[in-house]
């Protein structure tokens, strides 16, 4: 009898058994892949950072540098093992031409370095320190991947010709998320091209022990050494290196959770359908004295078989695909020393998937305990105890067609039965709508005001250059007399020192100027108007613990001055930590300057951008739309792709779940179907009843999903966006797509799935299910 039950079940549901196995295999593959990737990634990062001797502490600085002070500090500080100052020659993209193409459109800060002497080595693809000869250029590895350069290409930097000799791994700036990229040239060549760009200093420390980093940071801050650039540390480099691939692993893990959930649902519905159709046999087994655990074993054996086979296939597949996914890690970071561990972790994760499935099957089968042997033998079908929706009676129905009424009534009466399908549809419509709304929002023009950028037409960035004040004045003078420019504003960013509540000092970058001309969106309060007001980005306000109305003390020209926080705004530029003020004093020591302009005629933006770029070579001139596309274009297109994939995935999942659910329902309802048929209800009547059940669940699911998408989804998306520094996030919705097209696609797919899933209802015979 055991064997017959298992065989019959497998034969009856060949397709479902196969589908379940595929999902189990996919889940096992993904989970195994993620653990293999995690082990390899962490190993590869460690290897790279050890080989390259990545600095433990790095201060970036541009402008004058008193090396003697730093050397003295390093010598006196007993935590410092090694210290060095590297030069980084920042060259504008337009002056770097590789294989005939300039990097003018490249958003990275490209710069040149020589090989370091003590640590922070630039490595070749075999992990060795590169020795570079005159005339040779080593290019960051990322440019090989995106096809910008290949070995042997000719490169022209500031008029000097180089040959691309190879590619380098940079343990600091490898990641796409690091905004700077280092090219490697010989010392002789470096001296020759030095006039083509501006020099930045990388002040680097290796400590005797990394655990001293916290204490060292305090020492460094109290020494008040110069440093107008960002400060970076070893853990941050590690995180940056892990981020891109880590995100991929996180996505794979998320997808695998989803796949496991689908596999569970497949198992649940198939299992429940099997239990329903074997109801009498189960009753007989109980009646003849078999223990529940013995009966469970029969079904567990089948799923253990499916799970074991699926897991093995998945594990094997993970080895087929791991090369593909490890390629990126190997390219950027090289090999890992603990790849043998990867195998072990892969096996462990697959075993976990297997155990999770067996555990789940076992928990579904707990219902065996509730089956009454007498009832099962007598009726051969489970008897629903719940009888809800009593007030919804046929005799009082004047509105609905009888078949539709019966469908609606069934859903209302057996709500718990339909809960799983409802949950799937709610999640499906949620996942279909949220990424789509997010895509619409971030690709809408109005979104730039979340980015801390005023809504203008053209933007000039003056940075990494000398005499910024003079240069911005020159641009302003030209704009003033340019009739095609209707409005413009010069915003300069300077660093000020502020005191935190705990007394420690903090360097704050403040954008100064008239913030009323191209205002950003303030989530609270308003922009600074008087010179005793300051607006803080949300991230900065959080970090400083300030809210609107609070007072912040700045050191201006050596004197403390209190400024009132007048507003908070979203900003995703400069790491999200910015401030805006209308202080009139200007020091010569400004970090950078941005000039926004609005044209009288928008149609001439392209021409104007070219004209200003030609005229002010020291400035980076961009069309605002282009700026947005360059800065966030890839993010926007990834979200766009993700939203399309989400829609397809959700439709497939909804179809699969509906087919399985409906098949389970038909098996469960076979007695009612036979009774209906005996009363003269036709197959098309029954189809209408099942359709209306689907439609009721669909409508509730879509409405709930859409509501959740616009509330919870908005909050979640806002949380993601706010992690980059933006707040007060509201969706920009495309109603046609979100409220019409997506629901229609979901309805269409689910109804087709209902048709497929309930096709078995026509084959249910009256005699086979009613005859005594």
């Amino acid at each position, binding site marked *: 009898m055991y064997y017959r039950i298992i065989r019959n079940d497998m034969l009856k549901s060949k397709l479902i058994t196969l589908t379940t196995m595929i999902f189990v295999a996919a889940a096992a593959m993904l989970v195994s892949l993620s653990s293999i990737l995690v082990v390899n990634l962490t190993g590869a990062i460690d290897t790279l950072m050890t080989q390259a001797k990545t600095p433990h502490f790095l201060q970036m600085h541009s402008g004058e540098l008193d090396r003697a002070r730093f050397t003295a500090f390093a010598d006196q500080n007993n935590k410092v093992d090694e210290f060095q100052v590297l030069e980084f020659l920042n060259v504008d993209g337009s002056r770097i031409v590789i294989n005939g193409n300039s990097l003018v459109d490249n958003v990275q800060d490209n710069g040149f370095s020589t090989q370091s002497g003590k640590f922070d080595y630039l490595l070749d693809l075999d992990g060795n320190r590169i020795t570079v000869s005159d005339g040779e250029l080593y290019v960051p590895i990322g440019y090989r991947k995106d096809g910008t350069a290949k070995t042997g290409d000719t490169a022209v930097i500031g008029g000097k010709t180089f040959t691309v000799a190879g590619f380098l791994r940079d343990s600091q700036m490898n990641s796409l998320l690091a905004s700077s990229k280092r090219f490697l040239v010989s010392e002789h060549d470096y001296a020759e091209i030095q006039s083509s760009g501006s020099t930045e200093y990388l002040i680097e420390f290796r400590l005797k022990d990394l655990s001293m980093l916290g204490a060292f940071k305090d020492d460094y801050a109290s020494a008040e050494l110069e440093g107008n650039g960002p400060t970076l540390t070893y853990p941050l480099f590690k995180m940056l290196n892990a981020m891109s691939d880590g995100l991929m692993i996180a996505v794979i893990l998320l997808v695998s959770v989803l796949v496991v959930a689908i596999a569970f649902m497949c198992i649940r519905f198939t299992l429940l359908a099997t239990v329903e159709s074997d109801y009498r046999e189960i009753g007989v087994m109980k009646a003849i004295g078999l223990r529940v655990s013995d009966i469970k074993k029969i079904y567990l054996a089948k799923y253990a078989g499916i799970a074991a086979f699926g897991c093995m296939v998945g594990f094997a597949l993970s080895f087929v695909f791991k090369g593909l996914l490890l390629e990126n890690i190997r390219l950027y970071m090289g090999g890992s020393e603990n790849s043998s561990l990867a195998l072990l972790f892969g096996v462990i994760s697959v075993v976990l998937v297997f155990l999770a499935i067996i555990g789940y099957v076992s928990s579904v089968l707990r219902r065996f305990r509730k089956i009454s042997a007498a009832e099962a033998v007598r009726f051969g079908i489970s008897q*629903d105890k719940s009888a809800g929706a009593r007030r919804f*009676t046929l*005799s009082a129905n004047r509105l609905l067609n009888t*078949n539709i009424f019966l469908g609606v009534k069934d859903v209302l009466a057996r709500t718990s039965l339909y809960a799983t399908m409802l949950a799937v549809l709610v999640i499906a419509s949620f996942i279909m709508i949220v990424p789509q709304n997010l895509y619409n929002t971030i690709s809408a023009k109005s979104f730039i005001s979340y980015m801390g950028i005023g809504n203008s037409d053209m933007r000039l960035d003056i940075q990494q250059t000398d005499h910024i004040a003079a240069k911005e004045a020159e641009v302003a003078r030209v704009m003033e007399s340019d009739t095609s420019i209707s409005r413009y504003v010069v915003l300069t960013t300077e660093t000020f020192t502020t005191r935190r509540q705990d007394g420690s000092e903090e360097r704050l970058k403040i954008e100064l100027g008239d913030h009323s001309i191209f205002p950003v969106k303030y989530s609270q309060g308003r922009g600074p108007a008087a010179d005793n007001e300051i607006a803080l980005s949300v991230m900065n306000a959080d970090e400083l613990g300030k809210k609107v109305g609070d007072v912040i003390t700045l050191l201006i020209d050596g004197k403390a001055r209190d400024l009132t926080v007048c507003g908070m705004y979203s900003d995703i530029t400069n790491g999200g930590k910015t401030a805006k003020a209308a202080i009139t004093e200007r020091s010569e020591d400004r970090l950078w300057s941005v000039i926004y302009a609005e044209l009288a005629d928008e149609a001439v933006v392209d021409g104007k951008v070219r004209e200003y770029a030609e005229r002010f070579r020291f400035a980076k001139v961009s069309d605002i739309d282009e700026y947005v596309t360059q800065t966030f274009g890839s993010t926007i297109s990834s979200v766009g792709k993700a939203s399309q994939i989400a829609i397809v995935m959700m439709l497939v999942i909804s179809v699969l779940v509906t087919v399985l659910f409906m098949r389970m329902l038909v098996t469960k309802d076979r007695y009612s179907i036979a009774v209906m048929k005996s*009363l003269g209800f*036709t197959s098309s009547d029954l189809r209408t009843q099942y359709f209306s059940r689907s439609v009721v669940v669909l409508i509730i699911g879509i409405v709930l999903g859409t509501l959740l998408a616009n509330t919870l989804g908005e909050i979640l998306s806002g949380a993601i966006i706010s992690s980059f520094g933006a707040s007060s996030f509201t969706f920009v919705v495309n109603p046609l797509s979100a409220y019409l097209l997506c629901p229609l696609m979901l309805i269409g797919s689910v109804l087709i799935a209902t048709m497929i899933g309930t096709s078995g209802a026509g084959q249910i015979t*009256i*005699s086979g299910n009613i005859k*005594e």
Partner: protein
Amino acid sequence: MNMKKIITGENIEKVYGQGDDWRKVLDGVSAHINDGEFVSVMGPSGSGKSTLMFAMSGMDRIDGGKVTFDGRDLSALRENELANLRRTQMGFVFQQPTLMKNMNILDNIILPSMRDNRRNVKAITEQARTLMKKVGIAELEKRDITQASGGQLQRAGICRALMSNPQIIFGDEPTGALNQEAAQDIMNLFSEINAAGTAIMLVTHDAKIAAKTERIMFMCDGKIVSEMRLPKYSGVDIEDRMEKVMAKMREIGI
């Protein structure tokens, strides 16, 4: 007496199973039911009596022979046409009251009629109430099916079968799950229905039930092995009629 035949079965064959594993449950059975006739089918378990009823009512497709209902060949009808026939001209009562869960008793009774005549819900409900009163379950209309006895549910099933004023009611052991008293009540109800002109075909293995019908077909191993006629039952002489039925059963050895 030359009565009109409403159902005629000729050489009906029905096979269960497939491949090497099959069994002929009806082996060339020919039978008929006259208009307004009260017929029962008796026989031991597995003799094919229920299968014959399912075959003659068109609820089950047959593998050989022919069944004609009201002049129409049931084998030639499509599923939907058969369903229409069941809904409008036939009524069914089974051993277990086949009432739908999650519906009260009134809704169960009006269910098949509501499929076609939703707009006449008032008239349909009135008709159902009249029938419920007639069979003595008027007070149960709002009750859930779990709140009624087996006998009451079977009466509700009979009301449902009568809603379309069928030409014939098929009963498959309709008293099989009831106690004696409830069974007698149901049989009296069937007699009343039959007296009003509706033909009835009952499947039973209870001689006392069969004794209340006017023609009994005895089945064994998929064949009708004998038949006997009795005068219309008038409520008396039940012992005598039962004795005759049992004598016949002894005679044919079932």
